[in-house]
């Protein structure tokens, strides 16, 4: 195992189908038209010296180090900016070029510190490498002239430093910020000799920088360096793995010293991220070794008892005996489990197998219940499969992007960068969101239309857009005729064309001007490739599933399916939420979305597992909680999920947990749910296990173990241990064997194996005999269900209404630097940017309540009240307030209700009627939570000491 060094071609490789053949240093080389001479040379193994060029960026041609001679041309052109041409004859090295390059290096080094031995970039410095390559032995100009050696060091960013004295002003960082990240936070200030890299006149922390790390990655010197490198030195080996944050599923090189992570570097060949990253994946991995990690199994008789550390065997035996006792006393249906969207496919698969084959029921659910379950339902109804239709790369061909209820720059930042790149190339953007998210207007990006709809009015909006398409003759009739069920279409067209769905008719519901809706619909229908991207602002509503079907209707009606640049694209929240759903985590489905009542499917599982399986759907998470409160559900095994913080109506969830007799929590930390647990199985981070994650584009990526599990077992081994104690032995020596079983039982995974993943890097399901290398774009010739199905999407107002007591609408979401319940990010330095959840309130609403910036305010709904600080902003519209739920002390879900989507019970997080007022005290729930946070987390010291 060594350090993975990717080839840097200097400039991007062209993708043209037309080839050109040229001669470089006497050898013929054939490359796609548009390839630079530098990249052509590298493709045959000749590394032309360079400093300002790197293949993550467009060619710049400033350093003058990559000069070459081309026969028949004058001078010495830069190889990075010169395209390879048919018949061209290039010389990359001779005495003249060597002299020129050495002179260039002399100039660079005359203004650069000569502290190479103690420099953090020692061993990974392109400037040092180039000095070696050109044979620099002395600098004729000396070192005493005007220089920048006293340049200041900016250490304000928690993860990297900027050392101005080591900057060679190659602009790679500035270009990375522009071209790769699309934030434009960096610039070159002043001119000539005074030119310096600047983060906009303020320090890095105060700047627009989003800490994606692209500049650090691009820097060829020690000017921009990870603090971990400064502290620890250079890594000695690395492995490619997959980020454990959002559903983009970025590939990273975990660069290591022994079992210590030195840094996480985005992997250029990662198909989801193509070498880019965000602040979470790139830097916020410190939680994995946090002092808060629990590394020993623990049990206790009552939640008021202190935890007692025990051996794995004792924990398994205790948990199994409790579950057996409960089932003997209360019945087979009295226990269940929740799988984790943060765990691997293999770990999720064995969890649901434990439930179905071991508990003998189908009471298994997953956290997708509270996020994208309507996506699964809606897309399956319309197209026949429960997943997004495109790969991420598809956005490069989109002409009009309709972004609904998603905030990619915060929640899916790496994909947002790809989207912004396409927008800078001229694609048009329509944003439908109650808030003015960054993409509405940010540097070099401006939405053509922002439709600031009121929370709860999504379906009215999508119907109005479709109404315009149908009534103004904008339907793609050829597509509909060929690809869709015509009779369903005609029914739908009649419904959608009715006057009640016209933009003018729904204006009072959506709060959006009819003229804007009409214009947006026309743009989407006629602007070329139309692609819909959406997030939880679509699904987390009482009509979440209806809205997903509404979007599918619009895409079919406009012919925007089945090719690149179009499609319905759910932006999934968690790293493996797609995978958790694929693996059979829902109580009504086996892996591959096959209903438990399907006899043929059940036979397949029964014959392999050797047990009779239940043919009836089991309980969803909210059903489990309700049933626990009602007294019939007594035991739950929760894998990597924190329902006491993430699920709505916290008090109800806690009541359910308190009513159970055995709650098992498997997690890295003693999370909020663990306060109510009787058994704690310590979990393993993504760095401590092998497996796979499946991202939002159905891409199955490998997760590779780089360190031993801190608690001794990977999560799949923990589930196997518990299963063994329950009496359901599962025999796997490695997760690859679990994947083999998944492939055997799941048609869409039939050809997936670890060998295939090694060979291809990653693969998008369906991957089977019909698609042996996977399926980037779905529904190309026909829909999975055959003909596309138009569904009627009547708007039904939510039961959650504003009124005199609760006149505002609360909607919730994420912020860039924190993630979900914050269990990971709160244990990193990301807290520098977001140390507490704030309530965004419009200036009008703030003024009428006497609220000033930073005031503590009470946020009250019909079911609960919490206090948090207010921030006044017109990002939200009057009548709407917004907060995040990253910090348990804020208790955002104490306020949200248990209203849910009609089809899937996905909670209606996005619409809660609330009132806001100034206060000077925290709510009684928060006072109680502070107390229980300590009292319910005690670990018996004697036992802990003895276990040491």
């Amino acid at each position, binding site marked *: 195992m060594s350090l993975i060094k990717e080839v840097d071609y200097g400039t991007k490789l062209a993708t043209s189908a037309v080839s050109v053949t040229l001669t470089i240093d006497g050898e013929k080389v054939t490359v796609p038209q548009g390839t630079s001479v530098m990249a052509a040379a590298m493709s045959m193994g000749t590394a032309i010296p360079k400093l300002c060029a790197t293949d993550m960026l467009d060619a710049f041609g400033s350093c003058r180090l990559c000069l070459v001679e081309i026969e028949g041309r004058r001078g010495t052109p830069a190889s990075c900016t010169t395209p390879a041409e048919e018949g061209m004859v290039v010389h990359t090295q001779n005495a003249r070029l060597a002299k020129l390059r050495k002179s260039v290096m002399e100039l660079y080094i005359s203004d650069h510190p000569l502290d190479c031995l103690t420099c953090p970039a020692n061993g990974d410095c392109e400037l040092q490498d180039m000095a070696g390559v050109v044979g620099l032995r002395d600098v004729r100009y000396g070192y005493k002239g005007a220089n920048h050696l006293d340049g200041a060091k900016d250490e304000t960013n928690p993860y990297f430093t900027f050392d101005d004295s080591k900057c060679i002003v190659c602009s790679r960082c500035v270009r990375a910020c522009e071209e790769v990240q699309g934030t434009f936070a960096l610039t070159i200030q002043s001119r000539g000799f005074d030119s310096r890299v600047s983060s906009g006149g303020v320090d890095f922390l105060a700047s627009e920088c989003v800490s994606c790390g692209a500049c650090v990655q691009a820097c060829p010197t020690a000017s921009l360096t990870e603090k971990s490198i400064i502290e620890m030195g250079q890594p000695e080996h690395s492995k490619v793995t997959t980020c454990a944050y959002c559903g983009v599923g970025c590939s990273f090189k975990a660069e290591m010293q022994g079992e210590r992570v030195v840094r996480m570097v985005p992997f250029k060949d990662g198909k989801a991220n193509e070498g880019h990253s965000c602040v979470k994946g790139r830097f916020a991995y410190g939680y994995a070794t946090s002092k808060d990690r629990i590394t020993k199994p623990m049990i206790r008789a009552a939640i008021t008892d202190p935890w007692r550390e025990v051996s794995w065997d004792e924990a398994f035996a205790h948990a199994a005996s409790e579950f057996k006792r409960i089932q003997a006393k209360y019945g087979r249906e009295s226990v269940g489990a929740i799988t984790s969207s943060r765990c691997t496919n293999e770990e999720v698969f064995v969890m649901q197998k434990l439930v179905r084959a071991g508990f003998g029921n189908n009471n298994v659910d997953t956290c997708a219940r509270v996020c994208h379950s309507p996506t699964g339902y809606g897309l399956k109804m319309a197209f026949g499969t429960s997943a997004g239709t495109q790969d991420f790369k598809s956005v490069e061909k989109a002409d009009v992007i309709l972004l609904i209820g998603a905030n990619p720059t915060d929640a899916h930042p790496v994909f947002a960068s790809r989207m912004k790149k396409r927008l800078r190339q001229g694609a048009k953007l329509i944003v439908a969101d109650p808030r003015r998210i960054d993409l509405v207007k940010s540097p070099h990006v401006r939405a053509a239309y922002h439709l600031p709809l009121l929370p709860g009015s999504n379906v009215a909006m999508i119907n109005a857009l479709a109404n315009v398409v149908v009534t103004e003759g904008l339907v793609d009739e050829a597509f509909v005729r060929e690809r869709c069920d015509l009779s369903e279409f005609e029914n739908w067209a009649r419904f959608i064309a009715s006057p009640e769905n016209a933009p003018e008719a729904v204006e009072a519901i959506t709060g959006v001007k009819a003229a804007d809706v009409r214009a947006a619909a026309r743009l989407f229908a006629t602007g070329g490739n139309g692609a819909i991207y959406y997030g939880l602002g679509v699904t987390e509503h*009482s009509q979440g599933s209806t809205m997903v079907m509404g979007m599918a209707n619009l895409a079919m009606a406009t012919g925007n399916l089945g090719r690149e640049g179009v499609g319905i694209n759910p932006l999934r929240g968690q790293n493996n939420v797609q995978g958790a759903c694929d693996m059979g985590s829902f109580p009504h489905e086996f892996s591959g979305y096959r209903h438990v009542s399907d006899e043929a499917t059940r036979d397949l599982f029964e014959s392999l597992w050797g047990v009779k399986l239940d043919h009836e*759907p089991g309980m969803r998470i909210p059903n489990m909680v309700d049933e626990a409160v009602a007294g019939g559900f007594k035991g739950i095994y929760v894998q990597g999920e924190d329902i006491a913080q993430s699920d709505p109506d916290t008090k109800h969830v806690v009541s359910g947990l308190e009513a159970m007799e055995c709650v098992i929590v498997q997690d890295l930390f003693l999370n909020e749910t663990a306060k109510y647990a009787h058994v704690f199985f310590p979990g393993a981070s993504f760095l401590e296990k092998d497996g796979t994650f499946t991202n939002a584009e159905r891409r199955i990526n490998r997760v590779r173990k780089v360190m031993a599990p801190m608690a001794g077992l990977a999560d799949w081994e923990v589930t196997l241990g518990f299963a063994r104690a329950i009496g359901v032995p599962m025999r796997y020596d490695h997760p690859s064997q679990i994947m083999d079983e998944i492939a055997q039982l799941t048609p869409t995974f039939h050809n997936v194996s670890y060998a295939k993943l090694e060979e291809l890097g990653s693969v998008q399901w369906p991957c089977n005999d019909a698609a042996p290398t996977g399926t980037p774009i779905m529904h190309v010739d026909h829909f999975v269900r055959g003909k596309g199905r138009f569904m009627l999407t009547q708007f039904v107002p939510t039961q959650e209404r504003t009124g005199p007591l609760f006149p505002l609408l609360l909607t919730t979401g994420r912020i860039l630097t924190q993630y979900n319940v914050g269990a990971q990010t709160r244990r990193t330095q990301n807290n520098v940017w977001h140390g507490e959840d704030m309530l965004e309130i419009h200036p009008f609403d703030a003024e009428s309540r006497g609220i000033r910036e930073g005031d503590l305010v009470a946020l009250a709904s019909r079911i609960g009240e919490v206090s948090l600080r207010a921030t006044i902003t017109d990002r939200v519209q009057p009548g709407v307030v917004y907060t995040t739920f990253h910090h348990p002390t804020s208790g955002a879900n104490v306020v949200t209700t248990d209203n849910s989507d009609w089809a*899937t019970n996905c909670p209606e997080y996005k619409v809660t009627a609330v009132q806001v007022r100034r206060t000077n005290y925290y709510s009684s729930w928060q006072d109680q939570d502070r107390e229980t946070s300590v009292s319910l987390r005690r670990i018996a010291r004697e036992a802990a000491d003895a276990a040491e």
Partner: protein
Amino acid sequence: MSAASSHDEKLVCMANQIAQYFMSQPHDQAVAGMVDHLRSFWTPKMRRQIMDHAAVGGAGLESLTLEAVQRLAV
């Protein structure tokens, strides 16, 4: 209010919500769609509870809901 009656109320509410979706479809199709939905996604116990509730008058159930729930028993 007891936990059990609160639980029933919730089931009534959930069932009516489902009915609201199917209501825009032709009547027979709506009833069949709703029955299929309840069979596909509700546990046998939940179905039994809502059927028991319907059997004693079905307070709070919309007419489509009531019809679908009654059809469940067939």
